């Protein structure tokens, strides 16, 4: 079987080297790669490109089943590949909710058949996301989808007893409970971050403490029962402080930040453009700085996209009527490059840590987030860090258009993505499964 000889790439931004990829595995590096390559191997000119392990997203909404008008597993994973991801965790708030072995297996199979990225379904913590009784977590864990991440994302597991039980029960199969931290009573009718801007423009506020109070509660519950807690889309300076405290105490907690919470602030709401409406809301500049600092010092473990596609009509309306959420798979890496790499806080190895190694470890995705080394699975992404592009949602692979970065110039461009040695993105172009070699005419 032919493979790919990747010439002169810079793994993790380091020394240039050649990589030979065959049969889904990295079989040679450096001089050995060129020496072992045959005429059937596709040559990839990677001069100037940074090679990272394929990215792993802990937080993606693929919308299928139920809202295939906004995204399907196929379109969402194609967008993932375009963004450099080789594995994504598909959130459970579909219709029907992914709260049974049947639904998670369906999503997993759709992902496998599409072939753009490995799909790891997230199982709902509670039946129907209703927050009333635990879903069959064990059945989902032992299904073909092998669920390890459980979340009612979109809703908070508010009941402290249920949250305790979930943290305890998932220990049996090394699962993790990923919490959408939102105290519901403090966020009734909430539309945006509560602060100076919300006061001025008259949108009901979503106070920082509504997130922080749940995180504080949950880290103490996780400590008490010894469960694994993952805090989703952390957005406030106070939340960063709580996670920092919890980690210093030795509690098994991890946390994620989204690209939009690393770059955008609540000032965007002054436009009343619902493309900036998201849950949790965009916060203040001080919060953005704190989240960046938390990511830089390791308090925040990973960047996750919270890719949330929506139909045009659900965003092209007045703010209060609009859906929460924004797309992110295809811009994530560029945002991280801009806010973390270009200001010197991150090396490319750090990028690999927060976007590949650690999310794979948290989600127990064994074939991803591996080192770039001989014998490892060839899940790779090649990035051109010198490229700059103006984000145009009309040409993105996702089926929706609600990107908060539309019209914004961002650095970096994914040139190649390899899933088990097969090019899903070749020279910037998505390669359908049936034509997977990536060979250019």
């Amino acid at each position: 079987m032919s493979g790919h000889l990747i010439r002169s790439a810079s793994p993790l931004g380091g020394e240039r080297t050649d990589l030979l990829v065959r049969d889904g595995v990295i079989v040679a590096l450096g001089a050995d790669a060129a020496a072992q390559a045959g005429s059937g191997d596709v040559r990839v000119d990677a001069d100037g490109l940074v090679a990272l392990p394929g990215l792993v997203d802990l937080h993606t909404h693929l919308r299928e089943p139920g809202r295939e008008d906004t995204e399907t597993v196929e379109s969402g994973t194609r967008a993932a590949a375009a963004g450099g991801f080789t594995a994504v965790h598909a959130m459970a708030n579909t219709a029907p909710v992914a709260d049974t072995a049947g639904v998670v297996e369906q999503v997993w199979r759709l992902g496998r058949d599409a072939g753009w990225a490995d799909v790891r379904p997230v199982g709902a913590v509670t039946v129907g996301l209703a927050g009333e009784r635990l879903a069959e977590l064990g059945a989902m864990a032992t299904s073909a989808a092998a669920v390890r991440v459980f979340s009612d994302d979109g809703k908070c597991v508010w009941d402290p007893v249920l949250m305790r039980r979930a943290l305890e029960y998932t220990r049996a199969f090394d699962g993790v409970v990923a919490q959408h931290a939102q105290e519901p009573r403090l966020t009734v009718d909430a539309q945006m971050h509560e602060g100076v801007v919300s006061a001025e423009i008259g949108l009901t506020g979503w106070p920082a403490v509504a997130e922080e109070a749940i995180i504080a509660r949950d880290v103490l519950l996780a400590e008490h029962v010894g469960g694994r807690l993952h805090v989703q889309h952390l957005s406030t300076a106070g939340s960063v402080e709580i996670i920092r405290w919890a980690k210093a105490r030795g509690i098994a907690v991890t946390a994620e930040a989204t690209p939009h919470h690393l770059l955008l602030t609540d000032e965007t709401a002054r436009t009343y453009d619902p493309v900036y409406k998201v849950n949790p809301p965009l916060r203040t500049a001080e919060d953005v700085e704190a989240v960046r600092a938390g990511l830089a010092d390791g308090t925040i473990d990973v960047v996750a996209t919270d890719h949330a596609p929506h139909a045009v009509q659900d965003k092209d309306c007045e703010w209060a009527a609009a859906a929460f959420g924004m797309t992110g798979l295809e811009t994530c890496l560029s945002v991280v490059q801009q806010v973390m790499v270009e200001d010197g806080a991150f090396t490319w190895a750090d990028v690999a840590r927060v976007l590949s190694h650690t999310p794979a470890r948290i989600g127990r995705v064994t074939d991803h987030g591996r080192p770039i080394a001989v014998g490892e699975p060839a899940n790779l992404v090649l990035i051109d860090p010198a490229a700059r592009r103006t984000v145009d949602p009309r040409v993105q692979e996702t089926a929706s258009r609600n990107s908060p970065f539309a019209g914004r110039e961002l650095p970096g461009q994914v040139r190649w993505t390899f899933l088990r040695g097969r090019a899903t993105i070749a020279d910037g172009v998505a390669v359908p499964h049936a034509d997977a070699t990536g060979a250019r005419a």
Partner: protein
Amino acid sequence: MRHLLSTADLSRADAVALLDTAEAMAQTQSRTIKKLPALRGLTIVNLFFEDSTRTRISFEAAAKRLSADVINFSAKGSSVSKGESLKDTAQTLRAIGADAVVVRHPASGAPHRLAHAGWIDTPVVNAGDGMHQHPTQALLDAFTLRRHLSGGEGDLAGRHVVVVGDVLHSRVARSNVDLLATLGARVTLVAPPTLLPIGVGAWRCEVSSDLDAALVGDVQGEVDAVMMLRVQRERMTSGFFPSEREYARRYGLDAARVDRLPPHALVLHPGPMNRGLEISAEAADSPRSTVVEQVANGVSVRMAVLYTLLAGDLAGEGVA
């Protein structure tokens, strides 16, 4: 000026010009024939997504006195609950050939979206949006204040206005703070802390939760006007304050508090009033109360706004 969406968008010169134009409009309203030809042939749509008989009638009267054709489009409830989007409604208005849209909407920012989303290209007047803004109410309040305190000319520099009540949910409060500050007035907001928004400290005003202290005035100037805000009865059961009796006692304007005001000080209320809650009958009916006058002034101010948006910025042209 393309739209009137927020008093925060008005410069001092814009605001004074609008008030001057309103003054000119008011002069015409004492004539036997009140109608002016200024907007003849133009169609103004009153697009009301929530009930407000007073404001709608006021805009309708203003438009008709400028000879515009008026279409009243009542879309009670949110556009979403009706199943039709604001965008669809806007495009209907464009098809109808509206020359201006006066929009009242329960969602903050809806008029802003209507003006800037590219759905229509006509001037938009905000007739009240959610908790955000009610700019013509603030203009009519300023117009009323200016007539009593500044001889109907110029701005309100040096005047002190105390605004009392449910600031958190009040578009009237937000509009007035922005406009009165732009006109040079000193503003003090008074409310229980539960009815003050987080972030109010950034507004161009002072903030207090002690009505009696605020009404006393200080060395910077005594109180020239007290503007009472309506308390929505549903707030009663939402825990914003313990009881109607306690609210009235701590934040209601009663005869005793009115008596402690300087002789020239005015009492304003945007209406409709909750007598016995935020304002007593004695205070509402006292000679200082401008409540009825505010309604009349509302027509003049709205005439000025429509005229300025649709016929140009020059007060007097075809008016005096």
